[in-house]
């Protein structure tokens, strides 16, 4: 290793620092013109390592024009890094200008940046895509030497990462010899990340630099005082001990798993916070100004604790965080490590973390996660192949930059690691989609967005198309949200539209750390007042919970199956497992235990699969379908992270047959196509691909009505062109992510021949946590009509005596036929009898084809 040139060596020395090995290694890579990936734990001086070569180069050879581009997933991070980078530049008096460019950058500064680019520009994937969609891009980027990708592990495998990968492929052409530098936290698949970053899609073309690991983190398990809960995920019972820990340390981050949990823990802490310790709340649905305020207070050392969700996983260096408390099971090892790393960014001191499991199963999961951290075993999937919807957006953006030949663009795109396996057929179909929708029925010929000239070059049709394309760049699709505004006061944040639709004026809910009363909806804003009576609800957000990771699942199973490893478990948990061994048996590491027992006139079956909530929910649908066919009359199911539980009218006498591998057949196809998860996936894909307009925040209501409901489009497309490229993209994405079909397949093949069935006379100790969980699915989950019939009948029973216009009603209902099993008469006399679930099943069958 050489030494840095002056004034850099002197600058380090003046601060009493010596350049770290990985900082020098990145500099060496730069000198030999190589791309590099630096993998190091947080606090290793990673960012400086990424920029140092650029600073040295620009000092040795000062010049105008864009030299280094830095891309971060967070706007705030770009701004923060810019500030930190100013220090060395100013102190060494380097001839370098550093600027940021994000969605927040004012128009006049953007224009100035185009005229006179800074040497170093810090930006986000979205802003980079907009820059590249301009005809001036070739000139702007011509002199670019380096692109630094921060938090590369968080980008790779996401749609924003896909977009960045495609943009980098284009930058390679505009600036030959461009070096890529990736900065990443420790990951489970460094090779895959290298390939993702590589300009050739080959891992060996990126030099791997490993930062030295810091001190081992100090982790401990903290149980609530008194009784250890059987179920629940919120961890509220531990609030007093969490508060004690906060009081006993300088600055604490309390990490939780969902926004709802953040609200509840925050409320629980303040209820007992008699010393008025400054404790704040931070999650992704709070108003951005509010979040910035909390971050600033944190950085200024004015807070003792902040309760946060994944919104604080990435990002700004807080400096002095003394401990991290993780409430609820961590679900994944890599995420846990990242969170622990937030406590203390100094390498040589250990990070301190406290794990607070919310229930008995979570205790085992926390112990498993602690073991995994000690063993340096990480989890997480390798980056998945790039999305076709992002490709569609990119193709249009590239046409806006300059005409292209399809062969050349295909070659360029497949040099990106994320798209190296893209077939020419898929590429051509996406291109056709961008041109005119790509439908078999060529109805939109006259509306083409692109045209081809005699040499086969593809041009964008006109300026209007280009303008529209630039406006819709970006891959973040928000669920429809409603702003929450205090009457006569500020906006507090936002909740999902569906949550608002379940509220009636007068209902109250907890949000932004306060109890609010719902007053009404005014245009796109939900108006609330403070206070309110009754049991408050907590807004939930779709896709908020992460399922148990595969490697953590294996560790949990290993601990359960091997009593010698129970020593690390607290006494109540050991007692619980001993009782399970006595009453039933323990699940084997690689097999599967199924328990069958009667309870309350139904038959319960609990299968210990340990494949995570998403996989279990999909599996539950498949298994209950099969149960129906075998005559067990299933009523419902529940998938937790650990088990799948079903209940049925008749005893499942051959439960092992429910887990044969052929359940992943046609039924799965049918269900997947109908499921709301697929509809959600399609909505995102259709929006990113430009099929439907983005919901621009703050749009007038009239504008909102103009956007078309993606469900209607989905239904029509499925019926008339099931093989359309966007449906192919949707199926591929759903099979990978939301439905976790891959994990089900692994499970089924793993347990074949080693399923153990235990018939019990009552619920076993291990099954209790599952049976008290929320989130039950009913078998007729797909048969909406059966549900409607049942609900309409219930409404009528409830309102039968108090009709608002009883006179008309008699006429209205005169001829409505009453079919057996379907209650439709609004004024039935036998109001006391609610339809029992059995009847519901029967009517669901009647409706089935």
């Amino acid at each position, binding site marked *: 290793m050489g030494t840095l040139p002056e004034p850099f060596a002197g600058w380090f020395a003046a601060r009493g620092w010596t350049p770290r090995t990985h900082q020098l290694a990145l500099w060496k890579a730069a000198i030999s013109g190589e791309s590099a990936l630096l993998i190091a734990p947080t606090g290793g001086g990673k960012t400086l390592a990424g920029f140092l070569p650029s600073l040295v180069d620009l000092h040795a050879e000062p010049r105008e024009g864009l030299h280094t581009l830095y891309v971060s997933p967070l706007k705030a991070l770009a701004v923060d890094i810019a500030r930190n980078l100013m220090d060395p530049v100013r102190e060494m008096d380097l001839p370098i200008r550093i600027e940021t460019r994000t969605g927040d950058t004012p128009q006049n500064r953007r224009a100035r940046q185009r005229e006179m680019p800074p040497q170093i520009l810090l930006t986000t994937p979205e802003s980079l895509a907009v820059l590249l969609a301009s005809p001036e891009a070739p000139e702007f980027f011509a002199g670019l030497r380096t692109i630094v990708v921060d938090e590369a592990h968080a980008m790779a495998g996401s749609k924003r990462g896909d977009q960045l990968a495609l943009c980098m492929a284009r930058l390679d052409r505009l600036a030959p010899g461009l070096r890529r530098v990736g900065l990443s936290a420790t990951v489970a698949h460094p090779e895959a990340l290298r390939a993702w970053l590589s300009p050739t899609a080959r891992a060996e073309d990126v030099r791997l630099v490993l930062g030295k690991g810091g001190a081992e983190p100090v982790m401990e398990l903290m149980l609530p005082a008194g009784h250890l809960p059987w179920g629940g995920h919120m961890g509220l019972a531990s609030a007093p001990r969490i508060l004690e820990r906060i009081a006993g340390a300088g600055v604490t981050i309390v990490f939780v798993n969902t926004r709802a949990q953040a609200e509840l823990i925050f409320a629980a802490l303040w209820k007992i916070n008699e010393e008025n310790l400054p404790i704040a709340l931070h999650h992704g649905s709070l108003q951005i100004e509010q979040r910035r305020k909390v971050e600033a207070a944190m950085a200024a050392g004015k807070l003792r604790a902040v309760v946060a969700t994944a919104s604080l996983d990435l990002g700004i260096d807080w400096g002095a965080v003394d401990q991290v408390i993780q409430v609820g099971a961590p679900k994944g090892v890599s995420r846990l490590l990242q969170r622990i790393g937030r406590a203390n960014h100094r390498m040589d001191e250990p990070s301190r973390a406290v794990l607070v499991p919310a229930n008995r199963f979570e205790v085992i999961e926390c112990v498993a996660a602690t073991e995994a951290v000690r063993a340096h075993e990480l989890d997480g999937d390798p980056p998945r192949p790039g999305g076709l919807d992002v490709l569609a957006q990119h193709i249009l953006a590239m046409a806006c930059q300059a005409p292209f030949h399809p062969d050349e663009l295909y070659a360029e795109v497949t040099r990106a690691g994320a798209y190296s396996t893209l077939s020419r057929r898929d590429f051509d179909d996406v291109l056709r989609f961008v041109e005119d929708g790509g439908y078999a029925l060529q109805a939109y010929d006259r509306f083409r967005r692109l045209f081809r000239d005699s040499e086969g070059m593809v041009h964008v049709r006109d300026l209007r198309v280009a303008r529209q394309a630039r406006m819709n760049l970006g891959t973040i699709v928000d669920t429809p949200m409603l702003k929450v505004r205090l009457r006569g006061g500020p906006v507090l944040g936002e909740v999902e539209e569906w949550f608002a639709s379940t509220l009636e004026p007068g209902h109250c809910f907890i949000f932004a750390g306060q109890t609010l009363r719902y007053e009404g909806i005014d245009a796109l804003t939900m108006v609330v007042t403070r206070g309110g009576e009754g049991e408050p609800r907590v807004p939930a957000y779709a896709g908020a919970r992460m399922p148990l990771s595969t490697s953590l699942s294996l560790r949990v199973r290993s601990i359960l199956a091997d009593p010698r490893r129970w020593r690390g478990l607290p006494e109540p948990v050991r007692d619980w497992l001993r009782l399970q061994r006595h009453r039933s048996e323990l699940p084997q590491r690689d097999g599967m235990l199924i328990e069958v027992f009667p309870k309350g006139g139904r038959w319960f079956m609990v299968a210990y699969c340990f494949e995570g909530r998403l996989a279990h929910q999909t599996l539950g649908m498949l298994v209950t379908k099969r149960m129906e066919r075998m005559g067990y009359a299933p009523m419902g199911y529940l998938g937790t992270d650990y088990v799948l539980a079903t209940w049925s009218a008749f005893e499942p006498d051959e439960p092992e047959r429910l887990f044969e591998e052929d359940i992943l057949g046609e039924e799965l196809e049918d269900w997947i196509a109908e499921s709301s998860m697929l509809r959600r996936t399609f909505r995102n894909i259709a929006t990113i691909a430009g*099929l439907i307009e983005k919901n621009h925040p703050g749009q007038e209501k009239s504008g909102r009505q103009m956007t078309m409901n993606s469900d209607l489009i989905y239904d029509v497309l499925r019926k008339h062109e099931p093989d359309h490229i966007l449906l192919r993209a949707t199926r591929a994405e759903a099979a990978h992510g939301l439905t976790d079909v891959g994990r089900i397949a692994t499970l089924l093949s793993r347990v074949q021949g080693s399923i153990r069935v235990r018939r019990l006379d009552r619920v076993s100790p291990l099954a209790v946590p599952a049976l008290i969980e929320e989130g039950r699915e009913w078998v007729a989950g797909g048969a909406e009509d059966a549900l409607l019939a049942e*609900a309409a009948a219930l409404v009528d029973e409830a309102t039968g005596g108090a*009709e608002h*216009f009883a006179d008309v009603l008699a006429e209205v209902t005169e*001829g409505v036929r009453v079919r057996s099993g*379907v209650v439709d008469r609004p004024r039935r006399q036998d109001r006391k009898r609610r339809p029992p679930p059995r009847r519901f099943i029967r009517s669901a069958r009647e409706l089935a084809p």
Partner: protein
Amino acid sequence: MTPAPLHLSGERLMLDPMGVVSWPARRTLVVSDLHLEKGSHFAARGHFVPPYDTRETLSRLALAVRRYRPARLVLLGDSFHDPRGCERMAPADCAALGRLLAEVEEVVWVLGNHDPVAPVGLPGMASASLADGPITFRHEADFRAVGELSGHFHPKAALATRAGTISRPCFATDARRVILPAFGAYTGGLDVRDPALGGLFPRGGRAFMLGEGRLFSIPMPPMRRPAQRSPERVG
């Protein structure tokens, strides 16, 4: 398919789960808000939604016509998504529409805000509204009217079930009026609890949600008209 009878101003109407109304005494079939060529309207603006909506809507309408064999077909406006929609129709769709209209003796195009002029080259008469005995056909409901069939609002209703809330297009009714759901394949909906729609039912009413083979009836609570809202809620 089980239609539900409903009496309006002494006339017996059948509400059909397909989203159409039949008036047997006058051999009349009523349908609203087809929004034909909505897909191509979006395509012209650069959003290439699947071009099969007109085909889909017409095939469903043909089914309704075959079932009721009406002498008169009344379309309650917004039959085309925009005034030029008629010209954009694909030849095959145009022919299908022609065949469909030839099966009835009389076609009435009530004009809507999306299609304020009569469609060119199609049979039938066009009118802003039509009165027949005690029943009036109009695109957008008139608050004072009695015995009125209208469309425009694309009413839908939501019902909470134990497996989550389910939302469906619906007929919105009371003793004075029936507002039909939109029939078009690409038509969304407005919740009956929205003041703009609920305000037309000041004493409450009944919503009939469309199901596969039947309607699901739920009460609509009374609601004040938008004009009578307290000042702080306006704007």
